[in-house]
């Protein structure tokens, strides 16, 4: 068994920042990641980091924009924490040598982004995430933090008290991909999940293949609620063939969207007559699909994004990476012709429920970054707000796990305080097919230790044993269904039914498809018998996580009978603040998701953010 003070799962932006912060607090830190850190998906982030750095800007304005952009589903204490700390954290990166783009006077450059009242997006060309990821990994190397790379964490070691709020997380179980060895990792002080987004729930996504929502699913099955999962951001500009992201920076610099008739539709059809292409992402994504649905799309599929008028010099200076992406993945020379773009799954606003210190309702268990929901993005994330989320909440989680007093959190977690149970009209029984967890360990999340077990080593050992059985069960079968079949069926149904535009019949169809996938997963088998680098096994385990997340997204979407931010419903075309100014939560209740709600916190430190109509 391995033992450390703080164990960070995942090595993207949030995980690396958490590890650095915990190490600075004096903790012995280990990072456990299924990829080598520099392979993490943070490297693909292009746009930038919002930070109120300049005269004329203020964290208060940043917070206001964020609350408004969230369609008033962000929690003000978390949003204010983000906006207040972003300037310091951004400059901290600069002090670590990050290669930001520079103004003539040598200061870091900033540019406009969608939904921002000030050009406060700090960037490094169109490769901000790459620069950020490498800069932070450099700091991890410098500090000698232990990194277990290509180790796949498959479960959490959590005690088994009746209420999740009484449980404690003592560590994780991880599988060494290169040798097939399964080991316990005991955490003396805390486990931080930083496992990124769930893009692989969809088949058209900007996300990496590794983004399978592992951390969210593990925390969920251990008892932590998933929050606001229905809010999935579809980025308006992804390449049609692959889903590769074309940064919002293109529109920030002045890129223009055209339909097949050559009309600048954002203005001409009045989708966002004030902001045009720089409206929030949800607005632009809907506008593009409306054009395609009205028969004004190109090849009935996409629209054009044109940046030729910006001129070669400016493009090379600020968007060079975009030229390469358009050329490599679409065969388009973006200096000469417009790029084809369409909305693609991009970001999960929801995730593991945490407070603004990154802590969940289970003691010793933290989450940060895209896998977490603090919640700062509410119903719609503003471009340039994901990277500050990673560094700020990563840092806070790291500090808190290592014992630093960050003050009491204002956001509550778990079923305590004010909450109400909800109901959803599901056409099938959601949740695991076999929830007992004893007969078929593969179908369940694993077994938790008895409540009577006080020794943390026992808790970790039990979890390892349960995972060993689960892996064994998967490997023992000689025939059955392969994970790729199950995964792609779910991905296709989600893209068809739980996309930018959603209606009741489609959502119910998706739930039926997910149910069927769960039943087929009962017969899933791993073809590759090898213990060396068995990606077949890893992907089979990932697929189970994809199922849980797909279901949570769809259930939440079916339950939320209103139109807010990224969540559009055919049957409900109005935002309904009377009933729906609240967060959706799903808890794993003996194998069935339990739906409940808690109110959104609009009370900031000095003011209340009054919901206003988002007039575009």
């Amino acid at each position, binding site marked *: 068994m391995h033992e450390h003070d703080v164990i960070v799962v995942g090595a993207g932006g949030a995980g690396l920042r958490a590890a650095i912060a915990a190490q600075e607090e004096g903790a012995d830190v280990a990072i456990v990641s299924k990829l080598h850190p520099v392979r993490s998906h943070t490297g693909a982030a292009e746009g930038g980091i919002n930070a109120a750095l300049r005269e004329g800007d203020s964290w208060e304005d940043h917070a206001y924009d964020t609350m408004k952009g969230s369609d008033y589903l962000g929690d003000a204490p978390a949003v204010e924490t983000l906006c207040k700390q972003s300037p310091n954290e951004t400059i901290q990166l600069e002090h670590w040598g990050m290669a930001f783009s520079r103004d003539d006077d040598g200061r870091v450059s900033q540019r406009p982004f969608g939904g921002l009242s000030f050009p406060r997006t700090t960037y490094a060309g169109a490769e901000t995430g790459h620069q950020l990821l490498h800069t932070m990994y450099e700091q991890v190397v410098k500090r000698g933090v232990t990194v277990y790379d290509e180790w796949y964490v498959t479960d959490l070691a959590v005690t088994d008290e009746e209420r999740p709020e009484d449980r404690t997380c003592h560590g994780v179980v991880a599988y060494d991909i290169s040798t097939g060895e399964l080991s316990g990792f005991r955490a003396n002080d805390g486990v931080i999940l930083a496992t990124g987004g769930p893009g692989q729930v969809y088949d058209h996504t900007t996300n990496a293949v590794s983004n399978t929502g592992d951390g969210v699913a593990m925390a969920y099955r251990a008892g932590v609620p998933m929050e606001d999962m229905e809010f999935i951001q579809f980025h308006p500009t992804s390449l049609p063939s692959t889903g590769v992201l074309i940064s919002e920076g293109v529109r920030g610099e002045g890129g223009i969207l055209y339909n097949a008739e050559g009309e600048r539709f954002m203005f001409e059809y009045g989708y966002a007559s004030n902001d045009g292409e720089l409206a929030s992402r949800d607005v632009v994504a809907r506008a593009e699909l409306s054009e395609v649905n009205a028969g004004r799309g190109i090849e009935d599929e996409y629209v054009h994004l044109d940046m030729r008028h910006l001129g070669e010099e400016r493009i090379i200076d600020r968007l060079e990476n975009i030229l390469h992406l358009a050329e490599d993945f679409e065969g388009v020379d973006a200096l000469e012709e417009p790029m084809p773009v369409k909305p693609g799954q991009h970001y999960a606003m929801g995730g593991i429920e945490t407070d603004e210190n990154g802590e969940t309702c289970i003691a010793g268990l933290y989450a940060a970054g895209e896998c977490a929901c603090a919640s700062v993005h509410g119903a719609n994330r503003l471009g340039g707000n994901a990277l500050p989320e990673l560094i700020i909440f990563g840092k806070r989680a790291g500090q808190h796990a290592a014992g630093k007093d960050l003050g009491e959190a204002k956001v509550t977690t778990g079923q305590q305080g004010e909450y109400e149970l909800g109901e959803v009209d599901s056409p099938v029984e959601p949740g695991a097919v076999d929830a007992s967890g004893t007969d078929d360990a593969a179908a369940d999340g694993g077994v938790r230790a008895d409540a009577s077990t006080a020794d943390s080593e026992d808790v970790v050992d039990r979890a390892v044993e349960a995972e060993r059985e689960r892996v064994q069960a998967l490997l023992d079968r000689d025939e059955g269904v392969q994970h790729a079949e199950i995964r792609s069926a779910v991905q296709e149904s989600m893209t068809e039914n739980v996309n930018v535009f959603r209606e009741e019949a489609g959502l119910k169809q998706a739930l039926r498809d997910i149910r069927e996938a769960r039943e087929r997963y009962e017969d899933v088998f791993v073809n590759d018998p090898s*213990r060396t680098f068995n990606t077949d096994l890893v992907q089979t385990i990932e697929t189970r996580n994809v199922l849980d997340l797909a279901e949570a997204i769809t259930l939440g979407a079916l339950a939320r009978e209103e139109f807010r931010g990224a969540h559009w419903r055919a049957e409900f075309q109005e935002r309904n603040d009377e009933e729906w100014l609240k967060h959706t939560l799903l808890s794993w209740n003996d194998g069935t998701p339990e739906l409940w709600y808690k109110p959104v916190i609009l009370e900031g430190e000095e003011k209340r953010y009054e919901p206003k109509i988002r007039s575009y």
Partner: protein
Amino acid sequence: MSTQVPEQESEAETEATETDLAETLPPAQQARMERKAEARADREQRAREEAEREASADENSYHLKVFRYDPEVEGKQEPRFDDFHVPFETGMTVLDALIHARDTFDSSLTFRHSCRQAICGSDAFFINGSQRLGCKTQLSELEEPVRVEPLPHAEVRKDLVVDMEHFYDQMEAVEPFFQTNELPDGELEEQRQSPENREKVKMSTRCIWCAACMSSCNIAAGDNEYLGPAAINKAYRFAMDEREGEDVKQHRLNIIEQEHGVWRCQTQFSCTEVCPKDIPLTEHIQELKREAVKSNLKFW
């Protein structure tokens, strides 16, 4: 063949591996592995036959020859090439084809990949005789059959997966982190950097650690201690950054000037040729040589 497969292990090592396996694998599990291997071989055979049939029926498919090796599975311990026929779609990359082959024909086909947009650096392979990223290489640009092999001069773990430890060790050997003595006064003050200096280091910061350069370098192939193009480029990224002071720069030059450092480079440009991010690696190495000479001249 240029790929190193650790099949000629010393006797002692082989024995140790066998003992390990015997100790950790209960008989039932061993039997299971054998059973699965047999079943798998059957299935693979069927899949290959199916692929061949499809290929002969469908002119619009691509023929891939993919390197296979697994130290554990009987029938795969002897390196071989498997044929896959993949239905072609416009824009399809080598990575797309590999994924199709794995998901449709043989789920044990093993390779690293993640972002599929040329930024995570995990899918560098030896494709038709040169180091390239699978995700960035269009099938339509390649001659058939498309040969996909693991990176040469690296130890193969399984199929297209190579051991990256040596590469990572070399990267870490150059102190790959920013070092500066002069932090500005205020917490919110930047260490200003001129746009020109940022431009100078820009290309060097684009490295995605894919190891294509290291794999293509003849010198690195013969000298295991040579830092290699990626690590030297990493040193360049910091040595040329005006925000690091002169002392640090001298320290960095000392590192890259060691016996297995910049002077080993013979300017063959193979690293520059294969770099998927177009980093002028050879130029950077030469520039560091010049810097090293200049700094040595100061003491004469």
